[in-house]
């Protein structure tokens, strides 16, 4: 059976006023991480029970459902957990240079951290590849203090 679409009807607008919200977000792990980055260090939180190391650190363990607050430092080297090569921008237009975004499992951490990989042709990036962080010259305590990662 063929379905015939009826005539077009007009549109009216509505909004969802997201700007009226005041979202409260746990900031402890992010502050711990950013403070450490000022010293070119990376810190997270470890669960005392299952020994999982989270970076950035949450205030409770996902698996054990207990409060956690043991600060640990992890290395700025690690391996590529997975990656993607950005070839179009948010609007779908091709980008001039491909950018390698990766999820990196830092040595000593059980979670992944996002970052950009440079200094290698994107065709040669592999999962499991060793990388190290390249720090900004004058870290300010921001996520951008790790400028990028490069092959170790």
């Amino acid at each position: 059976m063929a379905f015939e679409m009826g005539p077009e009807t007009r549109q009216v607008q509505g909004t969802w006023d997201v700007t009226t919200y005041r979202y409260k977000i746990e900031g402890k792990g992010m502050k711990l991480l950013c403070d450490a980055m000022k010293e070119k260090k990376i810190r997270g939180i470890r669960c005392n029970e299952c020994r999982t190391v989270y970076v950035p650190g949450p205030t409770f363990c996902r698996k054990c459902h207990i409060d956690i607050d043991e600060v640990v430092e992890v290395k700025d080297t690690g391996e590529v957990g997975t990656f993607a090569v950005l070839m179009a921008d948010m609007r779908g237009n091709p980008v001039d240079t491909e950018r390698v975004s990766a999820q990196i499992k830092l040595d000593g951490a059980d979670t992944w951290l996002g970052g950009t990989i440079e200094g290698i042709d994107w065709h040669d990036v592999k999962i499991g590849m060793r990388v190290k962080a390249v720090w900004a010259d004058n870290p300010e305590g921001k996520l951008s203090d790790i400028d990028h990662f490069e092959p170790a």
Partner: protein
Amino acid sequence: MRNVAIIGVGYTPVFVSKRKDVNIVEMISEAVDAAFRNTNLTPEDIDSITFGNMQTFEGLNLPHLWASEHIRALDKPTIRISTGGTTGMSTLQAAYYQVASGLHDVVMAVTWEKQSEGDSQVGLTGIVMPEAMVMIQHGMDLFGGRGMAGMGGGSTGAASYQAMSYLHHSGASPEHIDKMAALERTNASKNPYAHLRKVTTVEDIQATPFISWPLRYGHTCPTSDGATVAIVASEEKAKKLADQVAWITGVASCTSDPTTANLIEGQLTDSAEQQPARIASEKAFAMAGIKNPKKEIDMAELYNGFAHQSLMWLEKLGLCKEGEAHKMLDKGALDIEGELPTNASGGVFSTNAIGASAMNRPAECALQIMRKIEGEHQIPKKVRNALAHGWGGLFQYVTVVILSDEPRKAK
């Protein structure tokens, strides 16, 4: 628990990118009417209604309230379920539990989306927007691409992480994604209720540009307007009301932590690991009395927002060994005529009215079992057991429903 069957399904007459002729509740009522028509039931036969969609996609809070007349809910129990991409199946599961518990005998599950009225990219971004703002406040370079890149470029970027990890661990090649995409689009061309209905070749897929390696435009799903309704009933009622039914023999859901990326707290799992799929499917198989799913499951309808996912889910849901899915694809086993027809409907990948997407999976399985498929995608072999799968949340939430041609045997 009582046995429960799907006794009928109703779709909107079409799933398309823009229904400009009707408003939201008018569109939903088309699927409700179709379900009544297909089952010869009337609203008086319905004890209770379950209802679901992704409400932020249309900017409507609790839309079942506005829709109450149009879904024929007046004076009936009604419940709204919302679990993201899996909403459709979660809504069906709520209907299942209402009947299995003995609370109701005949329940109608109503699921829909009219994505043309909102902006689904914006809606999806809204999941993590507050966290992203905090990361930007802490110096994350979201758009410049330096330093910590955060999301890796929207939902496709996050899906690319998953695709890459899957390819690496399974040994499949990017061409397998193209091949799966072509297969499903071609299946969709046979399905009158599919949105993208063009016979598609591997070359067609490969002609589309990359968004984020390894994913191309041709690997992503459309956004659709449409609604799907299923009516479920107890064993006693099913036998009275319908000549052909499909039994719901297993249900399960499982969640992990949001795995898209590190947000403001480190996340535990690789988004290609999908342990919830393993946990949920094992539970559903056990409930359905299925001991060897590789042998006993005759078809699968999988939730694939992106083309690599069909292959990934087959492995994670225990329908084949890890690393085997692409070999089955090469052998033709996933074709409509194959040994494990996968997304004969064309999948979410070809039709995606999000709230209904995870409902269309069990709906298609049920119609295949009843041999009531309209269109050319009826699976030729007898389907005894089918697996329907839903996926949602922030890459971390899985639902599974097993449908069978016979009721569940009492233990």
